[in-house]
């Protein structure tokens, strides 16, 4: 054992001396391996953080997300009465909790500010296993209609607003104009980011809502749920159980719940979403990069092995066995990859941070991504494996050297080896580089196609922000609320640089949706309902919205100042609405009916709306997704014609869309607006300014993320493949200097030699390209879901990328080819 250790130390010592001696080789090999291992470690750390790590909740594998599925939405929001029935009647869940976002304007403590706020069921945090660091969770009594307003606050808010006061429990906090008693502090370690839920600063009980509309069975207030499955219950069993529960609801409430369905998916899948396929494609891509790096280093070692054949022949002559020689060479290669791995780890740390900064909020669970123990173990494993993979072939080749032949002073004929192994390796890396380039090319074409899409509005110089009026406005009558809204609008119009603006409620293009059921004229709601009301996306706006967003008017007119609370109710529809419901007819003057909650009768009443105009369709669901979404119809209603209940909601908050006269940084334009509004009333909260251009860009962030990473890896692969083919040809030229000298002595012109070497490179490149094209054809279908407007087998991409690869490879070949053509036959023939 001691002997083995000693000889291993000897090998290590010798390897280090070798590296010092050939520092050029060492630097190139270590850098190449660092790039390959670093890229793999970076992507593994992302895959590990997002896909492999369990969620940081005690019973994570039993927690599921729940939605009400509709024909338009796979993840539709749940009506609260239905949720309560699900909670009561199911047999598969230990617990179930609902959640929805709410207004988080904090007033009364220093400067008014808006924080993220969520309403959650009392058992929301117990399901997730989250315990407050101070105080307690909600009780079921606090999660009931009309219960005294309470709040859990985040550790961050506790520190910021209350200076980490240990006696904060029982203190008051005014949120959205309502004084709440603080009952607990949620630890900063709690993080959950899913649709409709973001880690918040304030949590309120969802069941304390007093608005009667919330308790209507056909009312959907953007609410989703989580559930904790009983131990041993599978997802399929839970789905069956919920079918049973929903059948009961359909019997009890046929007109509303006749077709209700529950969609259940594991919470982790809900969090990860589409990122799973993106990350798996990227993991495959970096695997290719590492293989290319291995091939390059293997080729370097093969080239080096020729120079060291005499050394190893002497070792063998002195008694070293084949295994001993293989072991010594593997020690060198593993040490080389360990050095590469160490540098790769640093690159990975830097690269991961850079990637997450470049495309923020694209990757779920980003806060869990990092170079942790598992990533370190991965790097060690990959480094050792890499060392063995690229070192084995040269080691075996070297160990089989013909000793007597090598110990002679040169053979009788020039070395005839065509280095076929190296050529095959180069073809392999060319093929892999081409696959990656095709992937990046397809993503590039996807982005180009997406950017070509007309969003239906002009996002340049448009931004939108949120306004929470003074809390007292909620308690005012509708007339007073309308007057306040008119006043705010007038104040905003007086800000210099404003070209057009509109107060706004409801759906926001590419940001969030708001649907409304309607009936066409003469259409009756079915008594025994098995179908849904036709749905439309609803935007509530002011007349200047059209000018603000520059949406084209196609027929009739848009909303005007005359469309107010005392005039006939009107609506403007979009081209998709007209096409879907009034094909071949003129929709102007036609009527539709919507249903609004009437607080006097405590039920929904039918409200007729006259269509006065048709505008262009606006991209609602994001550049990439819009065309594939079933819900396309859109309608615009005047903000001044909203019902009394909606007025209350507007009094709690609304958006403002503003177009500036000149291009300005969104923040630079926003600040004077904010100051102007605050000057009119210090209790107003003005926040969350976003430019429409950012919103449009964000709608394709996932594609940009894929392009940035795939592009980086493909560029890396191209660089490594270029270096690879250059290295092999340079080596071949060096090895064949005498051959070239002979050819020249026999009359070969420089151009003949140049052509000969280029032909050699072209042969490897073309063979690699053909293999790569075939592999790419098979593999790119795996990324079909990531593409838009381009087929996975897009011939333009394939042809362009293959041409690019060949051009770069031939350029790499040109350098050694030119060197070969400069060979002096006199010198070459003396070369021994």
């Amino acid at each position: 054992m001691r002997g083995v250790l000693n000889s291993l130390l000897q090998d290590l010592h010798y390897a280090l001396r070798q590296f010092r001696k050939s520092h050029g080789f060492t630097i190139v090999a270590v850098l190449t391996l660092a790039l390959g291992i670093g890229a793999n470690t970076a992507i593994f750390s992302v895959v590990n953080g997002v896909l492999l790590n369990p969620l940081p909740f005690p019973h994570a594998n039993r927690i599921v997300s729940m939605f009400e599925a509709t024909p338009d939405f796979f993840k539709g929001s749940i009506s609260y009465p239905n949720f309560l029935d699900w909670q009561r009647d199911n047999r598969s869940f230990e617990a179930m909790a609902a959640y929805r976002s709410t207004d988080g304007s904090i007033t009364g403590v220093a400067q008014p500010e808006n924080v993220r706020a969520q309403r959650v069921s009392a058992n929301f945090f117990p399901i997730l296993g989250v315990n407050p660091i101070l105080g307690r969770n909600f009780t079921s009594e606090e999660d009931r209609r009309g219960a005294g307003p309470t709040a859990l606050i985040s550790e961050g808010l506790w520190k910021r607003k209350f200076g980490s006061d240990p006696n904060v429990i029982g203190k008051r906090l005014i949120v959205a104009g309502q004084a709440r008693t603080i009952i607990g502090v949620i630890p900063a370690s709690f993080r959950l980011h899913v649709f409709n839920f973001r880690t918040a600063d304030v949590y309120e009980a969802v069941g304390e809502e007093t608005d009667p509309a919330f308790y209507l069975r056909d009312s959907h207030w953007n609410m989703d749920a989580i559930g904790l499955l009983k131990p041993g219950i599978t997802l399929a069993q839970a789905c069956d159980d919920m079918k049973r529960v929903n059948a009961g609801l359909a019997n009890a409430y046929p007109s509303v719940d006749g077709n209700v369905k529950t969609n259940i998916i594991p919470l982790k899948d809900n969090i990860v979403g589409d990122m799973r396929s993106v990350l798996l494609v990227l993991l495959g891509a970096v695997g290719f990069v590492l293989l290319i790096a291995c091939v390059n280093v293997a080729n370097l070692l093969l080239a080096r092995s020729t120079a060291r054949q005499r050394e190893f022949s002497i070792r063998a002559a002195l008694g070293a066995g084949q295994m001993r020689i293989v072991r010594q060479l593997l020690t060198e290669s593993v040490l080389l990859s360990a050095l590469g791995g160490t540098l790769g780890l640093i690159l990975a740390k830097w690269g991961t941070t850079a990637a997450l900064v470049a495309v923020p909020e694209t990757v779920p669970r980003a806060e869990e991504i990092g170079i942790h123990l598992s990533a370190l173990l991965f790097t060690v494993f990959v480094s050792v494996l890499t060392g063995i993979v690229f070192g084995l072939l040269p080691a075996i080749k070297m160990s089989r050297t013909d000793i007597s032949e090598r110990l002679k002073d040169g053979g009788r004929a020039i070395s005839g080896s065509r280095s076929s192994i190296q050529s095959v390796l180069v073809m392999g890396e060319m093929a892999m580089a081409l696959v990656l380039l095709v992937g990046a090319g397809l993503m590039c074409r996807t982005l180009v196609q997406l950017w070509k899409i007309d969003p239906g509005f002009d996002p340049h110089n448009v931004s939108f922000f949120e306004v929470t009026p003074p809390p007292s406005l909620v308690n005012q009558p509708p007339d007073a609320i309308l007057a306040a809204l008119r006043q705010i609008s007038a104040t905003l119009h007086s800000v210099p640089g404003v070209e057009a603006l509109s107060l706004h409620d409801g759906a926001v293009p590419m940001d969030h949706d708001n649907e409304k059921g309607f009936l066409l004229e003469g259409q009756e709601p079915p008594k025994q309902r098995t179908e849904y009301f036709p749905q439309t996306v609803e935007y509530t706006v002011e007349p200047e919205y059209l000018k603000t967003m520059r949406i084209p008017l196609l027929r009739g007119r848009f909303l005007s100042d005359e469309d107010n609370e005392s005039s006939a109710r009107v609506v403007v529809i979009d081209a998709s609405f007209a096409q879907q419901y009034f094909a071949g007819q003129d929709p102007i003057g036609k009527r539709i009916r919507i249903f609004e909650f009437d607080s006097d009768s405590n039920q929904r009443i039918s409200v007729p709306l006259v269509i006065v105009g048709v505008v262009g369709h606006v991209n609602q669901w994001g550049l990439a997704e819009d065309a594939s979404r079933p819900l396309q119809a859109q309608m615009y209603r005047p903000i001044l014609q909203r019902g009394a209940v909606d007025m209350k909601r507007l009094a709690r908050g609304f958006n403002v869309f503003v177009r500036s006269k000149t291009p300005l940084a969104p923040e630079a334009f926003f600040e004077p607006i904010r100051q102007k509004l605050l000057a009119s009333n210090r209790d107003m909260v003005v926040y969350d300014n976003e430019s429409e251009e950012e919103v449009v860009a964000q709608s394709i962030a996932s594609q940009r993320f894929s392009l940035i990473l795939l592009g980086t890896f493909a560029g890396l692969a191209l660089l490594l493949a270029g270096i690879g083919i250059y290295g092999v040809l340079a080596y071949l030229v060096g090895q064949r200097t005498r051959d070239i000298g002979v050819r020249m002595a026999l009359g070969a012109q420089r151009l003949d030699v140049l052509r000969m070497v280029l032909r050699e490179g072209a042969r490897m490149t073309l063979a690699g390209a053909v293999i790569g094209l075939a592999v790419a054809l098979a593999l790119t279908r795996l990324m079909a879901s990531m593409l838009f407007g381009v087929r996975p087998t897009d011939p333009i991409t394939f042809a362009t990328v293959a041409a690019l690869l060949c051009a770069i490879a031939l350029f790499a070949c040109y350098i050694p080819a030119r060197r070969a053509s400069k060979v002096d036959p006199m010198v070459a023939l003396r070369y021994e």
Partner: protein
Amino acid sequence: MTETNQALIQITDMTKVFYTDEIETHALSGVHLSVNKGEYVAMSGPSGCGKSTLLSIIGLLDTPTAGRYFLNSKPVENLDFAERARIRNQEIGFIFQSFNLIGDLTVYENVELPLTYRQRMPSVEHKKRVMEALERVGMAHRLKHYPSQLSGGQQQRVAVARALAGHPSILLADEPTGNLDSRNGEAVMELLANLHKDGATICMVTHDPRFAKHAQREIHLFDGKVVAEEELKKLLQETSA
């Protein structure tokens, strides 16, 4: 002038100086040499006397520092690389000490190699010339073999065939027996002698007096100068003393 016209090679007052750092090495100093068509000349002398340098200049692999060189009555000392390559291909056939066959190519391909650098020669003509040359050296039965599958003597015969295939004006042989045993060496010398009998002009560098005797004329070089045989003996004696 008349003599120049008759001579295949006419070299006048040729010098070749190598510069290494600040050291000047005079490889050739005022060499005069004339080789007529059909002549078989051996160049001999001790190691470092400049015989290989002279052969390289004759073979247009190198250029002289000064002096004139006429090949087939045409001045060739100041030609550019491409023109020298063209003349090498068409006028000169090389036979090297270490054969310099290309290991990746078969016997047939090695012999064909100089013909591939000629423009507009049909492949039928290639084949004809290659077969003729190989038959001449008795290697036609090894067409598809690679150099590594041949003995040294066989390799050198293939190298001779390669030199013949282009129908050159002159064959230049640099120690053609240097890497061969005596039996194979004799066989190659016999081959050259037969070629000479058939009209070939041969210029051979050798340090072995036994092989030099095969030539019609022997030129002795010492310290970069052409010297008479007696003078060479005297100089060698002085050096060894």
